[in-house]
């Protein structure tokens, strides 16, 4: 398979790889619309969802994707597990391997943790977010959501907010650049990585300029911890200076598409009227998330893309 054993990030995938995943996701969208939301593509496969960090949305989305493909799944969260008792990631990996599983979906607080696991076990590893590094399935579902509305090539997409600490931002930057979009980031300099221009993105420090430039805004969640550690002074000022508000969007030269990876802080990084408004595709992102994750699981398990349509149809694939 062109994708290799693991999905660790979008940085090292080609445009062809990305399109393969997005195109494979298309037929899987329909499965979730059915009365009986289940196809047998991964019947007999065992998948562990290994979440070292709290997650609701991503974990549930993966779990639905796995169950709709008929895989057997086990959820492991850090609290209450051997991890909390001091077991390190190497030993966790060896124990999982010893239980003869097929795939691991890992969410971890350390950048590089998914790769670390992938290098040590024979099972497929899917990165569901590693530290501040990448969140590839989020990047993919964002691409799919944009592509549903407009061609990605030539689109001007701006990622707004705490890029420094965001794995979503990095996966978005790689995915969008590879598919021919122009990419910018916007935020206070204290929340942008030093030298981010080196990745091939434009930088805005004023949200008004970003809105005037962009076709698509991907608005990142602002974590409370950023105030505590002194990156910015307050949520109140952040909203005043960087908030994506209806008033600011109304001044835009064209209609923007608004994405947000969730969970949202209404009235902090995004105005409720924008989040709930006609340009928001935030819930479409959630729906596409399941289809994209089904596609990734299917492809890594060795499924052939040309059979994805058939795979969703019946048992004789």
């Amino acid at each position, binding site marked *: 398979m062109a994708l290799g054993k693991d999905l660790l990030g979008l*940085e090292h995938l080609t445009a062809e790889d990305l399109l393969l995943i997005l195109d494979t996701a298309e037929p899987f969208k329909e499965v979730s619309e059915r009365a009986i939301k289940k196809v047998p593509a991964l019947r007999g496969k065992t998948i562990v969802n290994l979440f070292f960090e709290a997650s609701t949305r991503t974990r549930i989305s993966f779990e639905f994707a796995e169950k709709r493909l008929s895989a057997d799944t086990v959820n492991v969260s850090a609290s209450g597990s051997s991890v909390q008792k001091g077991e*390190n*990631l*190497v030993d966790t990996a060896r124990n999982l391997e010893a239980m003869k599983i097929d795939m691991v979906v890992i969410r*971890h*607080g*350390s*950048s*590089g*943790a998914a*790769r*670390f696991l992938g290098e040590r076990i024979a099972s497929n590893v899917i990165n569901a977010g*590693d*530290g*501040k*590094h*990448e969140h590839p399935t989020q990047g993919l579902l964002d691409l799919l959501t944009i592509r549903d509305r407009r061609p990605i090539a030539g689109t001007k997409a701006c990622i707004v907010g705490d890029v420094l600490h965001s*794995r979503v931002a*990095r996966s978005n930057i790689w995915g969008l650049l590879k598919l021919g979009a122009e990419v910018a980031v916007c935020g206070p300099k204290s929340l942008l*990585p*030093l*030298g*981010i221009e*080196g*990745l091939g993105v434009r930088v805005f420090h004023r949200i008004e300029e970003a809105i005037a430039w962009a076709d698509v805004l991907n608005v990142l969640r602002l974590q409370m911890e950023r105030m505590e550690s002194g990156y910015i002074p307050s949520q109140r000022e952040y909203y005043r200076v960087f908030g994506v508000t209806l008033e600011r969007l109304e001044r835009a030269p064209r209609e923007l598409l608004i994405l947000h990876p969730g969970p949202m802080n209404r009235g902090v990084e995004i105005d409720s009227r924008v989040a709930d408004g006609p340009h928001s595709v935030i819930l479409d992102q959630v729906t596409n998330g399941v289809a994209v994750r089904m596609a990734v699981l299917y492809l890594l398990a060795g499924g052939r893309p040309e059979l994805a349509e058939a795979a969703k149809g019946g048992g004789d694939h």
Partner: protein
Amino acid sequence: MKPLVLKGGRVVDPSQRRDEVADVVLMGGTVAGIGRGQGTPDGAEVLDAAGLVVAPGFVDLHVHLREPGREDAETIATGARAAVAGGYTTVCAMPNTDPVCDNQAAVGFVLKQAREAGLAHVYPIGAVSLGQRGEYLTEFGEMVAAGAVAVSDDGKPVATAHLMRTALEYAQTFGIPVIDHCEDHSLTAGSAMHEGLVSARLGLKGWPRSAEDVVVARDLALAELTGGHVHLAHMSTAGAARLIREAKARGVRVTAEVTPHHLALTDACCEGYDTNAKMNPPLRETHDLEAMREALVDGTIDCIATDHAPHPYDAKDQEFDDAPFGIVGLETALGVAMVELVAPGRMGLPALIHRMATRPAEIARLPAGTLRTGAPADVVAFDPAAEWTVDPTRFFSKSRNTPFAGRRLRGLVRWTVVGGRVAHAGGGARP
């Protein structure tokens, strides 16, 4: 002890500006003389040094030998064994052990273990502050009387400007340098690597150059204020080199060291989250590397020190954020320096030996770094042309954590002589 003659080698002794083919005669634990075609003393053992460089044994101002506390990573005996394998006859042990070397008894313990090992000379460095907690000065006087040769809170910076000031003042009574680890913790909390494009891509918290530069600037100002001797450990940034150069020009009593890895590697080595590239200070960018080489060549940075930092085999087998900092360096230092500095012609052999032996001995006022008649018979003989491949499983150190595994290096230690005895005989047979 039988007299020992290293016959017919290229004798390079920067302390005497000597670089000639000659015999080195060692008797009674000291250098008896250097000359051509000297008679061999009765009963002497003769080592054929033809084709080898014969030089004062190397001196390392900065090693972590982990004993007491982490004997699973290294002991004073295994560290001293690794030292002589790398051509080092003298090493200075940093005090960040468990417990911390912050009193005369702890200093005595290091010396006792070193004496029992009977390999390289090991000189203890005492802590600047009790427990390295950055609060109260340790008893410099008692530690020096017991054998300490410097003070440092290495692993951490001297915590406050006031503590650094008093340490630099108080140390002058005892004629020892204060060695500082220059890192502003408020800029490096949670950081795992250099701040730049690579850290931005890998999503690792970046460690800016300025975290080093601001403490270097502080220490230089305080050395100037007090007239004390500050020695700056493991420099890594172009900015630090600039600050030191400027301070030296004004006569500030500052000396500085750089590690082999900061002369050879950049933050690109962190790609793939390779924890053997995780160092404190972190590997920087190409222009820092060039600034370090230039500063070592022009004397702004005085010497090479390894910052030998052993960790048990599984300690680096973790997520990058959680892995400990540092690498072992004693057994690869010469090879890396030869490849990075001498082979490309940045520096001649006499200059390299000055920075690995003569100059560090001067900085800590150690009886080493010279082959003058009467000096301790501490000598290294190495083949400057021999190439070898780094195989960490063959290290004498207890630990294997090195980013140089698999690298071709040049310069193979043939004999290391400590106090007139052969402490290490390396084969020409290394693959």
